[in-house]
């Protein structure tokens, strides 16, 4: 394959040899290192292929061996170019093509971001845009080291960045800190700010497992919103059960409680239905940058109308948005009609709303044990109202109040020790 391409580029000939001793001619060719291929012998004539360079060296051999060589066909690029030498536009076009390809290769056509999981491509792209790294910028203006530094500076959770240019593509590879969640929760520890857990709902505690801190409530206790559940301050007691010091920690506990949530949702009984059986007007449009060119007319004198618009933006690759878009717009006139929901319809709407809410709660790990939601229908609207009894995770972290270690007992301690000693003595 490669050989045939090289042959084509260099050009080759098909020649016919006739004469007294063609074999001698062949041997002479091989002796002079002239490459021959595709030999074919027919009726005493020999056809073969020979390169242009080989053919130029042929003259003395032909003379010596007394054969005649006739060129029957010419192949290859040199002959092709010679044949079409008068087609100036063709050469101009090829030249233009080469120049265009070269010029195009001077720009960044695609920014490829990989390795990001929590940060979206769009976030990173818009950040890069704010740093003047955009699609279509000149390749020579890209400073990969700058990009790496900027990204590392801006995003704390990205722990490794690599930026490189391959062809016309800027490749940004990032590595995110996968255990960033635990490090977040560890951060308060590090900054030595101890935390308490307080109730974020009125509830009755059903489950309490404390891993760190002092539990202040028991299973079965009712707590109000804002009550302390677990304290991050652990008292250090001495022999006489008096506080000598406090140790602080970030409280950690699994607490579940039974809470009663209020639910209310109302819906109007009447609604407007649009009857689109009237006239419509539409147009196709092309948007180039800020200018919009439409063909057709969407000017109208409709009393009430809705515009439906469909726009496609041209992109190169995945993210390179070109300033061209096209689409169509249709304006449809409608006749508004006021309609009323029937009772089953409104019930269904409210029911589906309620079950969606329940699903949302369940997704958050809330267990619904009882619901007491009823639908009330009035003149103009219907309302679903009531309470849901749930078992849910309770508690939010708040910073622990730091207390001064009570100074009095400390001061009295030696005296008391002495007193004790005295007592012992007297005993």
């Amino acid at each position: 394959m490669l050989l045939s391409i090289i042959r084509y580029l260099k050009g080759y000939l098909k020649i016919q040899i006739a004469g007294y001793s063609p074999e001698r001619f062949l041997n002479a060719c091989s002796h002079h290192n002239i490459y021959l291929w595709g030999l074919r012998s027919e009726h005493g004539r020999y056809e073969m292929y020979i390169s242009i360079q080989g053919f130029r060296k042929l003259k003395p051999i032909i003379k010596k061996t007394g054969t005649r060589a006739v060129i029957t066909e010419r192949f290859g690029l040199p002959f092709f170019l010679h044949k079409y030498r008068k087609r100036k536009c063709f050469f101009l076009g090829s030249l233009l093509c080469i120049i265009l390809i070269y010029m195009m290769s001077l720009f960044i056509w695609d920014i490829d971001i990989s390795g990001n999981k929590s940060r979206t491509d769009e976030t990173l792209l818009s950040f890069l845009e704010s740093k003047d790294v955009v699609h279509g910028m000149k390749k020579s203006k890209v400073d990969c080291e700058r990009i790496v530094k900027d990204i590392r500076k801006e995003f704390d959770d990205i722990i490794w960045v690599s930026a490189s240019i391959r062809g016309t593509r800027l490749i940004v590879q990032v590595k995110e800190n996968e255990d960033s969640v635990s490090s977040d929760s560890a951060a308060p520890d590090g900054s030595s700010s101890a935390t308490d857990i307080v109730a974020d709902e009125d509830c009755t505690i059903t489950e309490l497992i404390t891993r760190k801190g002092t539990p202040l409530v028991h299973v079965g206790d009712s707590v109000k919103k804002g009550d302390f559940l677990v304290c991050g301050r652990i008292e250090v007691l001495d022999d006489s059960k008096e506080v000598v010091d406090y140790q602080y920690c970030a409280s950690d506990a699994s607490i579940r409680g039974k809470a009663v949530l209020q639910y209310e949702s109302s819906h109007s009984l009447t609604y407007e239905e649009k009857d689109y059986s009237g006239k419509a007007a539409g147009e196709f449009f092309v948007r180039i940058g800020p200018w919009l060119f439409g063909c057709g007319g969407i000017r109208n004198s409709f009393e009430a109308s809705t515009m439906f618009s469909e726009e496609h933006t041209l992109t190169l690759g995945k993210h390179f948005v070109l300033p061209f878009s096209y689409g169509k717009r249709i304006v449809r006139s409608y006749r508004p009609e006021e309609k009323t929901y029937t009772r089953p319809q409104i019930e269904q709407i409210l029911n589906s709303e309620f079950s969606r809410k329940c699903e949302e709660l369940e997704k958050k790990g809330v267990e619904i044990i009882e619901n007491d939601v009823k639908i009330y229908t009035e003149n103009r609207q219907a309302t679903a109202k009531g309470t849901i009894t749930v078992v849910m995770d309770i508690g939010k972290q708040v910073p622990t109040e730091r207390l001064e270690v009570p100074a009095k007992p400390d001061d009295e301690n030696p005296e008391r020790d002495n007193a004790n000693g005295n007592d012992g003595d007297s005993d």
Partner: protein
Amino acid sequence: MKKNRQKSDGHSLSDRLANASGIPKDVILGFPILTVTGQTELSLENYRGILEYTSELIRIQTKSGRIKVCGKRLQVEYYTNDEMKVTGRITSIEYD
């Protein structure tokens, strides 16, 4: 005549030398190497030249004798100083 027989029996001095030294005979004695693939391809190395070439017969001169290749539609794929390749339907290969 006697010398010739010795040569063909493989007892000449250079032959024995080649045997003893373990150097390939195509290097020392200039024997031709024929690689035949099926009945359609023949690669030939270590030859001196073509004596006769038609589409039914190719005669090749080598250092140690002549080789006659008979067949149909014989064609020389390429022909250089070191190697040649013959394609077509080969019916016989003979040593003169």
